[in-house]
């Protein structure tokens, strides 16, 4: 993997809940490989609670090869929301609110053949047993192909790059010891944030 490319404002319901304007196209930002962690059942993930509120953003993840989607998974794009808000208000870049250790959490990536129709398959985030976020990729503003073409116009795409495709509504803060469960087709994994 060379990089993780993330989309912001790709789900209309999330744009509404954030009470921010709708850009013509979703926003793009990068996370480095060093911010990435792949979780398995029973994993624990350390987070920097001392840096302020950490919000979960549940997203479908695409793995690319030759600019085609060869695998998909589900994960969390974590955000230091207080810091991001303060940086946005000052008109500053908010990269530091997005790039920190374990801020890009991913399930194992499954081949597209393991899904019946991954674009129409619901993806869900449960925290301590409560459903917090749910949607499907077909609800996003850009289709997966449009997403790849859009990114390709701005960043050099490398084989193995991951795309975090944006989050639907329901984002909110995490707390230490929260039990996270991610469900998406054949993926059903639980882990804890500490």
């Amino acid at each position, binding site marked *: *993997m*060379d990089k993780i490319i993330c989309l912001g404002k790709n789900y209309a319901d999330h744009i509404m809940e954030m009470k921010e304007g709708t850009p013509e196209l979703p926003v793009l930002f990068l996370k480095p490989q060093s911010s990435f962690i792949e979780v398995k059942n029973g994993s624990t993930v350390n987070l920097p609670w001392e840096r302020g509120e950490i919000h979960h953003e549940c997203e479908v993840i695409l*793995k690319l*090869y*030759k600019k*085609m*989607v*060869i*695998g998909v998974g589900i994960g969390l794009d974590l955000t230091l929301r207080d810091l991001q808000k303060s940086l946005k208000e000052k008109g500053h870049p908010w990269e530091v609110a997005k790039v920190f250790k374990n801020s890009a959490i991913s399930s194992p990536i499954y*081949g*597209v*053949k393991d899904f019946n129709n991954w674009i129409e398959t619901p993806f869900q985030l449960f925290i301590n047993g409560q459903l917090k976020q749910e949607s499907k990729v077909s609800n996003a503003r850009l289709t997966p192909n449009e997403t790849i073409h859009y990114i390709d116009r701005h960043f050099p795409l*490398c*084989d*193995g790059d991951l795309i975090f495709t944006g989050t639907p509504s329901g984002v909110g803060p995490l707390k230490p010891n929260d039990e996270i469960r991610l469900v998406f087709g054949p993926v059903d994994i639980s882990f804890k944030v500490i």
Partner: protein
Amino acid sequence: MEKFRIQHDIKNILERLKIMMTMLTEENFDVFSKEEILKDADEDLEKLKEFFNKYQ
């Protein structure tokens, strides 16, 4: 600069080979056929050899 470019190219080839091996072992041929993957792997292995043949 040349040294860094070669290192980057080798890293990309190894990443591609890793992906191709995963697709082969998982029989993930929905997007690329087994034949296409094996052809790509051959080409990448040849490229990899060329980097090392220079020093033989």
